[in-house]
């Protein structure tokens, strides 16, 4: 029998190493693979394609004896069968650092194609795919690449933003831990397209397993992407370094303070040189696009949101995990049909989409389709597509206060609306929670939010008003 258990951080945090050791002690070889992304079932044991989970080490003898309760064929599980897995095509199936597994499962096809058709046609394919930046801003990747390709400089860079700090997001982590060669392939294609010989992957320090796996994969594949050269750089616990200009300063060895734009990083980026800064998921989508064609990717999705989005179902949700799907699916389908509602069994009060800077959305708006423009029209953000589900025990005034507190803790201090506004926001919300001058303080918060939204240099101060004001707008009863 062929036994596979994930070595992704979620599986390990839930006890996968003990389960794997129990199989090994019984004399059974275990392949440590990437995670299928069904996090509520981790540790998930895959025996010849049949799944058992969640499993504890004590359950192993009965599974070996054929008496385990299975979830059936994993690939046919409704959570998996309903997805459009393009980026997560290998999830659950390959050993992350095995070049053999990567080759055998459509690896390196995109890079081979890019080398065959050349830089210009590679950029054309990315433009045709309609791929937009998956980090949150949604800027068309092909246009960014074209700008860097057109810039004249002796040195250019490809920088991968792997500073995935938003709560409810883990897709970048899963790519780096589960399929690191795909990232490397995507970056090598980007380097070829724009004429950059050096790439940096900036990974947050909270992801030690992703750092180790990316480094191992870079060493194992250096000869395959040469002369393109890659290096991992490790963050140091600053959320704001997920903002691209702050990330560039951090890479240069400076305080992670935001830079004013212009100049755009595409013109003057790392060390003043033309630089592509793309999110992990953006770069990870590229190998598939090159191998299958931009039009094939654009056939998925709706409107100007083409392709698929690895949605992350998180928080108080029964079936949480990674759900890659074409744009256009509604929140209701994601939260109820796929996610199964709350884990606590209580009613869903709201979801927060897009991490700590995303809006809180009540169930009355769950018909909203996953689409950049539709979300913007509803005063909300897709961001990095993390969805945090809350049940009816949540206190929205406390969540609004936390949004301001988080901004105050993580503000880089460069601009006043963010640095001071966040602290004044915490104080004002505390007054409201204490029942002091509520109407007047709510007016102050609205005014402060306007100032932060339009006066901040980057999304940290600029978007913190989204969770604050959406909480007040949709749940006024929590602020009385």
């Amino acid at each position: 029998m062929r036994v596979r258990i994930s070595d992704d951080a979620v599986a390990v945090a839930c006890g996968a190493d003990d389960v794997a050791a129990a199989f090994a002690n019984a004399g059974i070889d275990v392949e440590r693979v990437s995670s299928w992304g069904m996090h509520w079932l981790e540790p998930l044991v895959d025996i010849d394609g049949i799944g058992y989970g969640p499993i504890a080490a004590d359950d192993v003898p009965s599974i070996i004896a054929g008496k385990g309760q299975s979830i059936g064929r994993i690939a046919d599980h409704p959570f998996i069968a309903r997805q459009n897995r393009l980026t997560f095509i290998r999830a659950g199936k390959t050993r992350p650092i095995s070049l053999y597994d990567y080759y055998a499962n459509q690896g390196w096809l995109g890079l081979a194609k890019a080398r065959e058709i050349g830089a210009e046609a590679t950029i054309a394919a990315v433009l045709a795919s309609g791929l937009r930046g998956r980090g949150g801003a949604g800027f068309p990747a092909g246009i960014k690449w074209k700008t860097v390709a057109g810039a004249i400089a002796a040195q250019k860079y490809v920088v991968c933003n792997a500073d995935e700090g938003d709560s409810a997001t883990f897709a970048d982590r899963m790519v780096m831990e589960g399929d690191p060669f795909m990232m490397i392939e995507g970056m090598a294609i980007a380097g070829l397209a724009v004429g950059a010989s050096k790439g940096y992957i900036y990974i947050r320090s909270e992801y030690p397993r992703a750092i180790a796996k990316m480094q191992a994969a870079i060493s194992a594949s250096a000869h395959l992407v040469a002369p393109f050269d890659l290096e991992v750089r490790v963050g140091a616990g600053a959320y704001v370094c997920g903002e691209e200009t702050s990330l560039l300063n951090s890479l240069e060895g400076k305080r992670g303070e935001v830079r004013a734009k212009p100049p755009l990083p595409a013109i003057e980026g790392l060390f003043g040189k033309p630089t592509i800064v793309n999110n992990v998921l953006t770069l990870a989508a590229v190998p598939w696009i090159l191998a299958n064609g931009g039009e094939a990717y654009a056939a998925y999705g709706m409107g100007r949101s083409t392709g698929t989005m690895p949605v992350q179902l998180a928080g108080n949700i029964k079936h949480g995990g990674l759900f890659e799907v074409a744009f256009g699916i509604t929140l209701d389908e994601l939260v109820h049909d796929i996610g199964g509602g709350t884990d606590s069994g209580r009613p869903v009060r709201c979801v927060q989409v897009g991490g700590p800077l995303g809006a809180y959305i009540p169930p009355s708006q769950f018909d909203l389709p996953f689409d950049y423009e539709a979300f913007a029209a509803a005063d909300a953000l897709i961001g990095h597509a993390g969805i945090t589900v809350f049940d009816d025990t949540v206190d929205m005034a406390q969540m609004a206060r936390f949004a301001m507190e988080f901004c105050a803790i993580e503000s880089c201090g460069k601009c006043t609306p963010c640095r001071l506004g966040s602290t004044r926001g915490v104080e004002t919300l505390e007054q409201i929670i204490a029942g002091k001058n509520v109407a007047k303080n709510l007016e102050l918060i609205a005014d402060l939010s306007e100032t932060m939204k339009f006066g901040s240099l980057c999304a940290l101060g600029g978007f913190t008003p989204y969770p604050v004001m959406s909480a007040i707008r949709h749940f006024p009863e929590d602020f009385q």
Partner: protein
Amino acid sequence: MSAIADILAEHNGQEGPLLPILHDVQKTFGYVSEDAMREIANALNLTRAEVYGVVSFYHDFRKEAEARPVLKLCRAEACKARGVEALIPLTEGQSRVKVEPVYCLGLCAVGPAAMAGEQVYARLDTRRLGALLDSL
């Protein structure tokens, strides 16, 4: 040669080496001392203020040694939705382990989550967190 000089030598020629150097210094000594900052500043032709500014900007770097074991407990939204705030009294009822907040470990569907060193923990409740604190 001092241990810091060894670290500096390893990063010779690297682009933008300050953060990698600081990580290595902290890994070796557990913190970044004033002496270390002075030596790094000299080697990189920076002012001490510039190096201090970087050390103090990032949450990861410590300017003093921490003798206690450290547990980073996630206090971000997804772990709040899964009940981490109810575990706080337990962490405050002891002082043997330094419990620090962290904002997201990427384990957002199986929280409350925590990390000690490079080891990650999930599905924490009072019993499991209590056992974890005792084990550190």
